[in-house]
C-alpha cells in the first residue's frame, strides 16, 4: 500500500513538473519579440546640368538627383531609387523615367532628356527595406532646354518633299481656275453673242418638226 502510494505521488509530481516545464517552454516561445522600428528616411530632389566630355553643358540633357538620408542626416548608400514624371496621358499618370542607385553620400543620379520644355513635376520613391522606412518626394522643376529623342537627319529628298505640297496646290488651283474659267467664259460668251446678234436671228432654238434622213 505504502509503495503504491509513493509511486502514485511520484508519478503525480513528475507529471506536474513536466506540465510546468512544458508550459514554461510554450510561454517562453509565445512571448512576442520586441520589434525594432525602421529608421526614418527622407528624400530630396535636385537638378544639375549634365556636362559632356569637354565640360560643356550637354544640349537637351540634365541630371536629376535624389538624396536619401536618415533622420540624422546621414546619406544612405547602395539603395535603389525610382524617378517618375507626372504626366497627363489618359488621366494623371506617373511616367517611369528610370532608376538610380545611391552613392556613399546617399545621392542617386539619373540622366534626364526632357522631350518638352516648361514646368514638370518629378517624383522619386524609395521602397524601403533592411531597416529603412520607405520615402518619397515630389518637386517641380523648370526645363528650359528640351531635345527631341526622335530627330532624324534631313533626307536627300527634303527639298522635293518641302515643295511638293506647294506644287500640287498650284496644280489644283490651276485646274480650278480652268474649270471656273471655262464656265464663266461660256456663260458670258453665250449671253454676249445673243446681245450682239440681230433681232431676226434670235429664232426659237427648236426647229419646226423636220425630218432628217440618215
Amino acid at each position, binding site marked *: 500500500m505504502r509503495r503504491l502510494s509513493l509511486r502514485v505521488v511520484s508519478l503525480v509530481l513528475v507529471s506536474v513538473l513536466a506540465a510546468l516545464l512544458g508550459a514554461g517552454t510554450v510561454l517562453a516561445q509565445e512571448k512576442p519579440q520586441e520589434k525594432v522600428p525602421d529608421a526614418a528616411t527622407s528624400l530630396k530632389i535636385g537638378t544639375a546640368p549634365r556636362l559632356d566630355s569637354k565640360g560643356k553643358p550637354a544640349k537637351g540633357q540634365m541630371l536629376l538627383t535624389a538624396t536619401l538620408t536618415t533622420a540624422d542626416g546621414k546619406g544612405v548608400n547602395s539603395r535603389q531609387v525610382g524617378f517618375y514624371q507626372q504626366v497627363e496621358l489618359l488621366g494623371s499618370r506617373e511616367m517611369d523615367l528610370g532608376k538610380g542607385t545611391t552613392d556613399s553620400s546617399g545621392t542617386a543620379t539619373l540622366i534626364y532628356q526632357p522631350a518638352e520644355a516648361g514646368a514638370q513635376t518629378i517624383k522619386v520613391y524609395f521602397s524601403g527595406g533592411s531597416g529603412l522606412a520607405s520615402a518619397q518626394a515630389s518637386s517641380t522643376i523648370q526645363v528650359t532646354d528640351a531635345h527631341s529623342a526622335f530627330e532624324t537627319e534631313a533626307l536627300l529628298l527634303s527639298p522635293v518633299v518641302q515643295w511638293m505640297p506647294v506644287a500640287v496646290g498650284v496644280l*489644283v488651283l490651276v485646274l480650278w481656275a480652268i474649270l471656273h474659267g471655262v464656265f464663266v467664259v*461660256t456663260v458670258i460668251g453665250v449671253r454676249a453673242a445673243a446681245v450682239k446678234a440681230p433681232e431676226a436671228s434670235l429664232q426659237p432654238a427648236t426647229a419646226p418638226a*423636220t425630218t432628217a434622213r440618215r
Partner: protein
Amino acid sequence: MNRHADFNLEQVVEAALRPLAPSGRRFWALAAVLGVVVGSALVAYVVQFTSGLGAAGYNDQVFWGIYEANLVAFIGVSYGGALVSAILRLTQAKWRAPITRLAEAMAVFSLLVGMVFALIHLGRPERFWLLIANPQISSPLVWDFVAIMTYLLATLIFLYLPLIPDLATLRDRLAARGGWMFRLYSLLALEWHDLPAQRRLLNRATMLVAILIIPIAVVVHSVLSWAFAVTSRPGWHSTIFAPYFVVAALFSGVAMVILVVAGFRKGYRLEQYIQLKHFQYLGYLLVTLDLMYLYFTFTEMLTEGYAGVEDVMPILDALLIGQYAPLFWFFVLGAGVLPIVLVALPRTRTINGIVIGSALVVSGMWLKRILIVVPAVAHPLIAGAWGSFQVTWVSAALTIGGAAAIPLLLMLFFKFFPILAIDEMAEVAAEAAAEHAAAPQPSLALGEGGVVR
C-alpha cells in the same frame, strides 16, 4: 440601195420631255418606295449619330468597314458615267446621243451620294469642319477632299453645258405660258438661240471639259486608293492600288450606266431611241474593263502570294480559302466571269442578258470593295485574334438608302430636265443626213428601150 430611217425631231423632243409631263401612279408609287427606303436610312443615321459607330458594326479593331466601301463604290460608279459620256463625246461616237444625259446625271448624283458616306463614316460629322479649318496637308484624306471637290465641279459643269440648248428648247416651249419654270429655264438657258458664235463657244467648252474630266477622274480614284495604299497595313500597302481603283471605278461605272439606261428606257418608253446596239456597245466596253479588272486582281494576288510576305499571307489565305472565300469567289465568278459569258454569247447578248450581267457587276464590285477594306483591318497587326465586322441594320439601311437615293434623285431631276440630249441627237442626225447627202447615189440611167442600167 441604202435603207433610211426617218428621224423626226419633234418625236425626239416629245420623248425627251416625257418625264416632265404629269406622272402616273407607277412613278409616284416607285418614288414613294424609294423615298421610304431613303427615309429609313435617315432614321438609321439618327440612331448611329446618337449611339455611335458601334451601332453600325464598327469596333476598336475594325475601324473601317461598309461605309468606306460605299464611299469608294459610289464615287467609282460616278466615274463610269462621266467617262462614258466624255470618251464617247471626244470620239464623236454617233450612238452616244441618247445615253449621254443619263450617264452625266448619274455621274453627278452617285458622286453626291458617295460624298455623303464620307460624312457618315466620320461618326461625328462636325469633324468635317477640321478638313477645311485645319487641314493636314500630309494626310491622304485632305487630298481626297480636294480631289473629290474638283471632280464634283467638273461633273456639274459637264452636265450643265450640254444641257443649255435643251433648256432653251424648254424655255421656248413655255414662252407662251410663262411662270416660274419659264423663268428658271430662261435663266439657265443663258439667252441661247443656237447662233453660230454660241455654238462654237459651247462646243469648245464642252470638249475642253470632256478632256479635263478624264484625268481628273483618274486622279480622284488614285487619291482614293492612296488613303489605303500609303498606309503600311498589310493588304493595303500595294503599288497597284491606284490603277486598280481606276479600273474598278470604270468597270462598275459602266455597269451602272447600263442599269440606269435600262431602267429609264423601260420607265419612259424610250425603246425607239435607246436600242439593243447601245447595250451591246456598252456591253463590249464592260467586258473589256472586266478582263482588265480580273487581270489586276490576279496580278495583285500573284505578287503578294508568290513573295509570301509573312504579314500579307494570312489576309490572302482568308480571301482565297478562309472566312472571306465565299464572298471573294462569288465576286470572281459572279461579277468577273459570268458577265463576260453573258455578253460573249450571242444568245445572251440581249438587253436582259446585259442588264443581268451589269447587276452582277455592280453588286460584285461593291462586295469587292468590302473585301478590300475589311480583311486588312480585321487582321491583327500584332498578336491576337482576327477582328470581325458585323453588318447591322443601321449600316444596311444606310447602304440601301444610298443606293436608292440615286434613282430617286435621277427621277426627280428628269421631272425638270430632258432625259434625252435633244440637241445632241439633232446634231448627230444632221451629221448623218449630211453624210448621206454627200455620199454618191447610185444612178438610174435609162438606156435604150427604157432598160435601167
